[in-house]
């Protein structure tokens, strides 16, 4: 469903170009969930942005649903891949109601039954009718993230990209959002590519985990192997150690 073949991503051009991701190769079959972990600056979000079509890639190939894509995409290509951002405050237009936010994708793709779709999308993410005409500042962080998920799903994408979808949320809200994502994935057979710095969150939602460091994919393993510490790379070990919490000895 998602195929990345030797993808290199650079910021800037010419001699000032900085390579953020080197030769990244990953293939995600339909219905699978793959997570990328790594520190800030490891290039994990950059990969996600290139897959989303927000930034161009310098070399290699990106294929989505069997179609080779670029930064410039057709409206139909856009529809297959949607994304949920990290910051539930910044990803919703501050001056628009939930209704307006959800009406935008309907208008862009000239979808039929717009009204019904908006109501359905809200119900699916667990928001009631009373939330439909509120502004983002009248919603809690968790509710905002639900709106962002509804906005992505209203287009019925086959691929959902998640950029740290719960790292700005409280633990109890994080559980709700993770459950929601797991349910939606099951119901719709979504293919997920998720980025997070939290190993436990990734392992909860994804079957396979890629570890990134300094712009390279250093290891790709399964969540089960990760839990049993069956890892090969030093950096992954360090990550596992840090994840266990502070060592008081």
């Amino acid at each position, binding site marked *: 469903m998602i195929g990345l073949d030797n993808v290199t991503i650079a910021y800037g051009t010419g001699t000032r170009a900085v390579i953020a991701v080197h030769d990244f190769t990953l293939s995600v079959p339909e219905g699978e969930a793959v997570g990328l972990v790594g520190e800030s600056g490891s290039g994990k979000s950059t990969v996600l942005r290139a897959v*989303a079509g927000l930034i161009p890639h310098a070399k290699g190939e990106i294929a989505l649903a069997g179609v080779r894509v670029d930064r410039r995409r057709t409206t139909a290509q856009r529809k297959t891949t949607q994304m949920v951002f990290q910051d539930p405050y910044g990803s919703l237009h501050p001056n628009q109601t939930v209704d307006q936010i959800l009406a935008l994708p309907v208008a862009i793709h000239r979808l039929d039954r717009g009204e019904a779709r908006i109501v359905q999308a809200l119900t699916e993410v667990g928001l009631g009718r009373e939330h439909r005409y509120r502004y983002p500042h009248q919603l809690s962080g968790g509710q905002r993230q639900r709106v962002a998920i509804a906005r992505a799903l209203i287009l019925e994408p086959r691929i959902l990209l998640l950029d740290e979808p719960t790292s700005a949320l409280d633990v109890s809200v994080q559980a709700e959002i993770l459950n929601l994502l797991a349910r939606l994935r099951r119901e719709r057979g979504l293919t997920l590519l998720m980025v997070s710095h939290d190993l436990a969150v990734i392992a909860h939602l994804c079957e396979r985990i890629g570890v990134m460091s300094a712009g390279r994919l250093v290891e790709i393993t399964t969540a089960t192997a990760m839990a049993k510490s069956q890892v090969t790379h030093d950096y992954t070990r360090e990550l596992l150690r840090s994840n266990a919490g502070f060592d008081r000895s």
Partner: protein
Amino acid sequence: MTAARTWLLDPAPASRMQARCGRWFRAWLGFRRNKLAMTGLGIVLLLVLMAVFAPLIADRQATTLQDLGNRLQPVSWQHLFGTDELGRDIFARVVFGSRITLTIVAMVALIVVPVGLAIGLPAGYFGGIVDKVLMRLTDIFLAFPRLVLALAFAAALGPGIENAVIAIALTAWPPYARLARAETMTRRRAEFIQAAELQGASALRIIATQIVPLCLSSVIIRLTLDMAGIILTAAGLGFLGLGAQPPAPEWGAMVSSGRQVLLDQWWVATIPGLAIFIVSLGFNLLGDGLRDAGDSRS
């Protein structure tokens, strides 16, 4: 009253309309606490009412009716603000002059905002070469002192209200283009813009539905604050004989004609001068209030 209030402040509105009205109402509740801003709003409203109902307040004939026998009369019940050097009633002229002032202000606003947005939004959104070309163009217009450029245009186009409006508008738009560009650039990288892009929205749609609503509030605030300057420029052009032509009761021209008799018949120049001052002050207070209201919300 309370029912309307509850409807407006409902935290869970039932329609797009109600949500929008509620937002405006909340903004109004905040604005209302600012006494100076309310004074400004009052002055501006008064100006508008005066312009609309001018024929009910004063006699249109009196603005041009020359009565040389009654020239330079002081303030009296018959002539509330006295008469000018041609014996015309200054009160009637000030009242009808508000129409000219308001027309100039409205026309300038109608030209300046769309031009500013049309230049600034693409410059900020696309960046690169588009930005460079559009901003250099803006710089050229910014390089001239405003009144001098307006004077040159007015002189070239010939005197008259329409040409004064065009001259003022031509010199007033660059700051709006800059403002729109700056606002667009700060929002360009926002995640909600990226989300719209991801959903397949075209650049035009993103600019029109996502960016314009955010720019508009600061543009309107800037415009309100600029109004005083526009009124003064219009008055300046009128004073120099390049604006509204006699016998039109333009305030700037009235000040100009009264200056020869300023020491003996002070009211001839002072009354229209006061009108200019009060209206400018009103727009400034209103603009400040709007800016404060905008600050507290974000």
